[in-house]
């Protein structure tokens, strides 16, 4: 699956839609979802939690493995995707859409990769 051009990306294989910096949306990429396998449990930060860029803020668990979710930037969580908590498989079936994880108010700088740079990164990781 190709990475949408309008999104930004992290080296931790998360995507960020920062069109609205007061409620930037975060999810994991199709590449990450595919590498994890079937996602069976998602632990998200709570609304109101303060995020620190690069720090763990949740977990994504698949049948075979556990991965941490990292804050893409400083900020405050304003909304979580309750649907993905109830139906973690959304991360696999629609990682860039209904499988979004949470929204946060961006407080610091966003230092992210564009789709082209992210595609290079995943190519390097094979």
């Amino acid at each position: 699956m190709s990475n949408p051009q309008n999104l930004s990306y992290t080296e931790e294989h998360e995507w960020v839609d920062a069109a609205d910096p007061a409620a930037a949306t975060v999810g994991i990429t199709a590449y990450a979802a595919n590498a994890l396998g079937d996602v069976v449990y998602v632990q998200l930060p709570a609304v109101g939690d303060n995020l620190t860029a690069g720090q763990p803020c949740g977990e994504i668990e698949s049948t075979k493995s556990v991965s941490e979710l990292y804050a893409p930037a400083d900020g405050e969580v304003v909304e979580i995707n309750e649907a993905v908590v109830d139906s973690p498989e959304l991360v696999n079936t629609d990682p860039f859409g209904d499988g979004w994880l949470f929204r946060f108010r961006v407080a610091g700088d966003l230092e992210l990769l564009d789709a082209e740079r992210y595609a290079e990164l995943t190519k390097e990781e094979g």
Partner: protein
Amino acid sequence: MSTPSPLHEVHQSLGASFTDFAGWSMPLRYGSELAEHKAVRTASGLFDLSHMGEIAVTGPQAAAALDFALVGTLSKVKPGRARYTMLCAEDGGVLDDLVVYRLADEEYMVVANASNAATVVAALTERAADFDATVTDRSAEYALIAVQGPTSAEIVAAVTGATLDGLKYYASMPATAAGHDVLLARTGYTGEDGFEIYATAAQAPEIWAACAERGATPAGLACRDTLRLEAGMPLYGNELTAELTPFDAGLGRVVKFEKPEFVGRAALEKRQETDRALVGLRGEGRRAPRHGYSVLDADSAQVGTVTSGALSPTLGHPIAMAYVPAALSAPGTALTVDIRGAKAPVEVVALPFYQRPA
């Protein structure tokens, strides 16, 4: 560089994700491992197990050599039948768990885990040295295809043209699959009825295709692990290690003290009484205890360790196997698992977690 399976190109064309497993590049999953798991429980899955080790032990004293080398009495296995057994060290520790097929009076095939195949070849060769028997590693020649699930008998009957009613669990027979001479066995590692087809590497793609055409769903090693866990079957490296005896794992029945001398006998006699037990754990919610996590008692003291765990795809709740003190091994015992800092309540339950409908 890991060794590709004889079916590597088939897997690539199916879009498989690969994993390095004991020096082999094997399919982890083709799409959704949960869908593959379900296919095995409700219809049939098709597995490439070509990484497994196949070791031939032949000669007039092949039976005597295996009786000495392994903990079971392989001389009592009739030609055409198979036995689950173990290779133990002098100190009684498990070096591998094995399925041994007796193909003829003087011909056995020992099937070893890929990760232990070299150890098993070396140990059998050394232990058979004083017997009129020959140990030959034939792993590279063999491909192994498994068809597992409630519809596997129909699929395998169609692919082989064989009548399977007489082929019991843990039995084997020569058969023809997709026009090739193969060894057909009714064995598996999923908790379902199932078959394993031993063929040459060159024959494997046609046999695979014939099984797939008749409805077996390609299934990878990811679901193989959750299937065997639900069935309460041990995995070497998790439930079985060189530090543990068969008795520790609750599998003391494979050790046959009534036969004459065998490697590990003296130590195993001493280590029969064990104060640890391998138990099943049932959890709540969706977070699974995993390999290496601590099992805690009511006072939060560590009393054991999880060996395998997953959110059970069939049952919908977390399941795990763990070593705990025998005193805490009764079904119904309440324990806790430390899941990355969170204390998750679990209950000891009888194994297996899943049994196929009769």
